[in-house]
Structure formats: C-alpha cells, structure tokens
C-alpha cells in the first residue's frame, strides 16, 4: 500500500524499457503519464471539492446542500461541469480577444505547475527541486498576471477594478507569505520540501512556528482570493469582478484554477507545518490527503463565516500587521536557533 504509486511507476518504466525504448524516451513517457495523472487527479479533486464546499456551506447554514443527484448529491458537480461545458461561450465584442482567451488557460497552467514540487508521499514528488519552496512562491506569483489579463481584456469596469484589487492584494500578500515561511526554512535549514518534511520527523513545525503558521494562513487566504479576502470576485460590489464577462467553460477554468490553488496551498501548509506525509499506520500519501483536506475544511469554514474585509483594511493588515509580525518571527526564530545551538542541541 505504502509504495502503491511508486510501484506502478516502476512497473510502467520497466515495461517500457523491456519494449526497447531508450532511457530518455522512457523518462519522457513517464513524465507525460505523471502529469496526466496529476491533471486528472486535480480535476477530479476539484469536482469533489466544489461538492464538499457546497455541502459544508449547507451544513453551516443548516441546509442540506446538493442532495438530488447521486448519493448525497455527489454527482451534482459533474452535472454542473457538463452544463458548463455545453454552455455558449460568449466573447463580448469589445474585448481584447487574444488575451481574453488565453487568460484562463494561463491561470490553470500556472496552478497546475505548483504541484510539481509538493511531496505527495514518501519519495513521491514530481520534481524534487532543491529550492522547492522558492519555486512554489515564485510560480504562485504568476497567477496575478492571469487575473490581470482577464480583468483588462474584458473591457469592463468591474473586471478591471477586480483585477486591480487582486493585483494589489497579491503583491502585498506575497511578502508576508514568503516571510512567514522563512522561519520554517531557518529551522529546517533547506528550501527543499522533502528535506523540510524530513526535518519534522520529531516535531511538527506548527509547534515551533505557530505565529508563522497564522501569518501564512492569513496570507494564503488572501493569495487564494478566498473569503474573507475575495476581492477580485466580490460579488456584492463587483458582480463577479475579474470574471464578470466570462461564461461557460472559460469561467469554469478560473474556478478550476482557484480550487487547484486551494489544494496546492493547503498541501503546502500540511507539508511545512504538519509534518507532510508523515504519520502512523496509514500510507504516506493518505496522510497528506487527510491533512490537506482538514486544512481546506478550515478555509471553507472561514469563508462561510466571515464577511468580506474592506480593500484598504486588507492592505493595512498586510503592511502594518502581517509584515512586522513575520519579521519579528524571523528575528525570534534566529535568536532561538542560536540559543538552542549554544545549549548544544
């Protein structure tokens, strides 16, 4: 069970080698298979997540949520996806069509790229990059451009305002996000995510870095554009913000990407603060799934409880609270590490 996926990959590569393919082509095929699997899993996962979010919001509001299609309504999202796929794809006449069409694709590509470095289990990581954490942050910053493209090309005031808000918000929150992770990096002594997981074999970093976790969590919510920081959509003010003019599957792609990001950010939180794939009894990939889902539940819980924060409060929260707090956290961590070293740990 533990090595289920690794064994599958190994069997596949052995089989390909037996067929007479060179190592280069075998690796290429394997890479294609891995990415296809990841994309499939992401899509299926988003379908489950949308259902879960609707169910959770229903339960929170003492409703039932979707319950008509399939047991507990679990096929509802599939039906919705089919509906979105068959819907008319409207492109307003005054849009910048090239950018309008590429924006959702760019968004989803960037979101999927995030998964490359997350260890999904013991020895299960697509690219075990030495600077994995840094990769996550820098590639994650590209989502800004996708929203900006969508907002600008729609040629709609709501969209542009949403995009502007989103950009301001994401650029501001990248700083506390990166700073909050520095404490973890300092303790683990590496930017490699597998190494960070390995460093938590004794104690989870949530215990050592609670402040960093809270800052990360808040900054990540903002990065994800999720409530209470859902500025770019903000349906009460901006109707649908940057996505106002999008319909059908293009619109759905944005949501696919947002949920993909949600999973990635939650998986990162699990990896950095909750010991990643480590855990007793169950196979390692199971553990990361459980931890990621629990963190996502908290994200959903927050979204359905809190009102939306105001734009300027959002900015001042970032610059006046989160940045100083995360800087102090780095300082305290550094001093702490020196003290522990001095004590001979």
């Amino acid at each position: 069970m533990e090595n289920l996926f690794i064994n599958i990959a190994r069997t596949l590569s052995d089989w390909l080698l037996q067929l007479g393919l060179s190592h280069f082509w075998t690796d290429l095929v394997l890479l294609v298979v891995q990415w296809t699997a990841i994309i499939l899993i992401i899509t299926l996962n988003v379908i489950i997540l949308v259902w879960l979010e609707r169910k959770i919001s229903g339960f929170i509001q003492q409703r039932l949520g979707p319950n008509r299609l399939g047991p507990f309504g679990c096929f509802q999202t599939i039906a919705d996806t089919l509906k979105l796929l068959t819907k008319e794809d409207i492109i307003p006449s005054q849009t910048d069509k090239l950018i309008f069409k590429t924006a959702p694709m760019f968004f989803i590509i960037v979101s999927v790229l995030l998964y490359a470095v997350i260890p999904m289990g013991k020895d299960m990581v697509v690219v075990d990059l030495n600077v994995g954490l840094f990769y996550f942050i820098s590639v994650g910053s590209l989502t800004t451009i996708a929203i900006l493209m969508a907002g600008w090309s729609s040629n709609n005031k709501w969209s542009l305002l949403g995009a502007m808000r989103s950009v301001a918000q994401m650029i501001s929150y990248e700083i506390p996000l990166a700073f909050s992770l520095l404490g973890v990096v300092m303790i683990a002594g590496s930017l490699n995510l597998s190494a960070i997981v390995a460093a938590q074999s004794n104690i989870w970093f949530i215990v050592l870095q609670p402040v960093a976790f809270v800052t990360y969590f808040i900054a990540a919510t903002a990065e994800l554009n999720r409530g209470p920081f859902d500025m770019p959509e903000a349906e009460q003010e901006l109707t649908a913000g940057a996505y106002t003019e999008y319909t059908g599957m293009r619109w759905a792609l944005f949501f696919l990407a947002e949920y993909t990001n949600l999973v990635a950010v939650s998986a990162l939180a699990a990896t950095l603060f909750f010991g990643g794939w480590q855990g007793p009894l169950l196979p390692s990939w199971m553990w990361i799934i459980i931890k990621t889902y629990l963190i996502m539940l908290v994200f959903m819980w927050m979204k359905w409880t809190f009102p939306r924060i105001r734009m300027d409060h959002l900015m001042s929260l970032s610059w006046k609270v989160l940045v100083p707090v995360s800087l102090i956290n780095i300082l305290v961590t550094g001093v702490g590490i020196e003290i522990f070293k001095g004590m001979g740990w």
Partner: protein
Amino acid sequence: MFVESEPYIINIGPQHPSTHGGMHVEALMDGEEVVNVTIHLGYVHRSVEKIAESRTYTQFIPYAARLDYMSTNLPAWGYVEAVEKLSGLTVPERAQYIRVVMGELSRIASHMMFVGSLAIDLAATTGLLYCLRDRERIMDMLEMTSGQRLLSSYMRLGGVSHDLPEEFFPAVKSFLTDVPAMLDEYNGLITGNEILQARCNGIGVLTPETALAYGVTGPNLRASGISYDLRRADPYGIYDRFDFNIPVAQKGDCMARLMVRLEEIEQSARIIKQALEQMPEGEILGKVPKVLKPEKGREVYHRTESAKGELGYYLLADGTDKPARLHVRAPSFINLMVLPIISRGSKLQDIITNIATLDPVLGESDR
C-alpha cells in the same frame, strides 16, 4: 509632480446583487474612493398612488400592504388608521391589541431582514441564512393568523380580518422566549465580528443636523442620536399603554444603525409581551358601513412609525367611495436621499454598506 487622476463612473444597479431591488446608483469614483453618488429611482414604480384613486377605500388595503413588503402589516396598518381617521370609524379594543401584536411582529421581521441583508451585503452569507431562519417563524405566525406569509393584507377598516387562532399563542410565546438567544447569535456571528466592525464603525456617518435637514426618520434617525419615535412622540393606536424604551445610538454610523435595530427587536418583543397580557376578549371588527363615503373635501394626514421610519398617508375625500388623492410619505425614499452625503469620500465598498444600513425598500420608495 503629483499623480493626477481622472474620475470615472461606476454603475451599481439596476441589476446588481446588493441594491435591494431595482435601484440604480451611479457612483463617480476616483480610484476606489467615492467622489459623488447619484441615485436613479423608478425601476419598480407601480403608480400606487394613482391606483388608489381608482380603488375604493377597502380595496386599497392589499396595495398598501405591498408598499413595504418586508413588514407588510405596518404600511397596511398606517393606511387603515388614516381611513379610520378620515371617516371617524372606531376600532374595538381587541382589534387594537391584535394590530399591535401583528405590527410589532412585522417590525421584528423587517429588522431581521435588515440584519441578514447587511450580513450578505458584506459577504457573510451565513448571517443571512440564520436571520431568515428565525424570520420564518414570524412568517409562520402571519400565515396562521391571516393565511398569507409575505403580503398578508390582514388589516381591515375598523379592525382586522381574522381573530388570532388558538395555535398562535404558544407559537408567539416560544418565539418571544427565543428572541434573546437569537440576538445572542447575531451578536456573535455578525455584530461581534471584527471585520464587520471595521467595515461599519465610522462608516457612513449621518450627523443629526443632516438627518433633520433631510427629514430622515426611523431607526436611521435614532442612530444619529435623536430620540424620535412616533410611537412615543405622537402615539397612535394604543401605544401609550405600553412600557418600552426607544433605542438611541450617538455615532450615526453604520454600526449605530445596526445596533439600534438589534435593540428595537428586543423592545418590540417587550411590546408584544405586554400586548398579549393586556389583550381583552371581544369583537375584532368594528361597525363599518358597507359603502364608505367620507364627505367631500375632508382630508387627513396620518403618520405611523413603520419599520423604516415615519410612514404617512395623506388622504383627500371627494364624496365618493374612492379617495380623490392619496399621497404616501415613504420613509425609504426620504432616507435614501442621504446616501450621497454619507457616501462621499468613502470607498466603493462603503456604498454597499451604506445602502444596506439605510435599509430602503424599493417597493415603498418607488411606489
């Protein structure tokens, strides 16, 4: 060199998630900052006042109930009292008490809707659902008594249409017992939330001077520190028999408007409790002529405290069974006019908060 920027227009409505109906707010923006706000009304204009001229006095009651559909009994009550004043009808004691009970229940329903819609306008969806859940109990009671949930047209000239049914009393008693728990929940989920406080405190400040100058009434006025409530200032019906407080807040901002309404829910519950205790047995409908023809030239202006403010009816009789002229002083309309003043200089998101806390009902303001 300083950055010069050019103002631009953002149209909120008439089709927009948070305009509470067909309202068009044209916001002149400088970035995220509001320079000016212009309100365009009339999207739900039904010419109610003109309709009144072709309906008999009795026939207009269901239309009156449709003015402020969030608290349907209050506008209907105001109208029937105006007609009663015009033609000198008397209302039996029991009917007076029933009117108070049903009217105050409607007021609670309206304020619950206010709290819920404020919550959802600030994107706290769950707050709305909890408020609607509790409001549903009031709707059930309206259905029990009058047969309709939303637009009950329960008031009649000289009384009410039905007596309170047996099952009403346990329902209303259990509701009144639960009111403090409900308020606790709203306070925990909505009022106590720091994000909401940040978005409401100091936002949309309505000074008492502006409020008076613009004729703002109701909870919006009381939130600006002026203790003016028609139930106390010019008691109509039997309001002089009840002991209740008039909640007043000093700051005049969105938070004050929210707090005043939350307290009013409590006070309305108090009034209902007293009314139920004092309620006598007896007739529910006074003696009303089959065809009501007030003498020609008689006119009356009658004002009541509706959930939104001073709701006044001006009626002019021409000797027939239909009024020659009916004018409604709709509090929503007048309260809404301060929106530009309290929104100027704030952020785009504050317009939404301001609209929500001014609590307009478009059925009433457009008529």
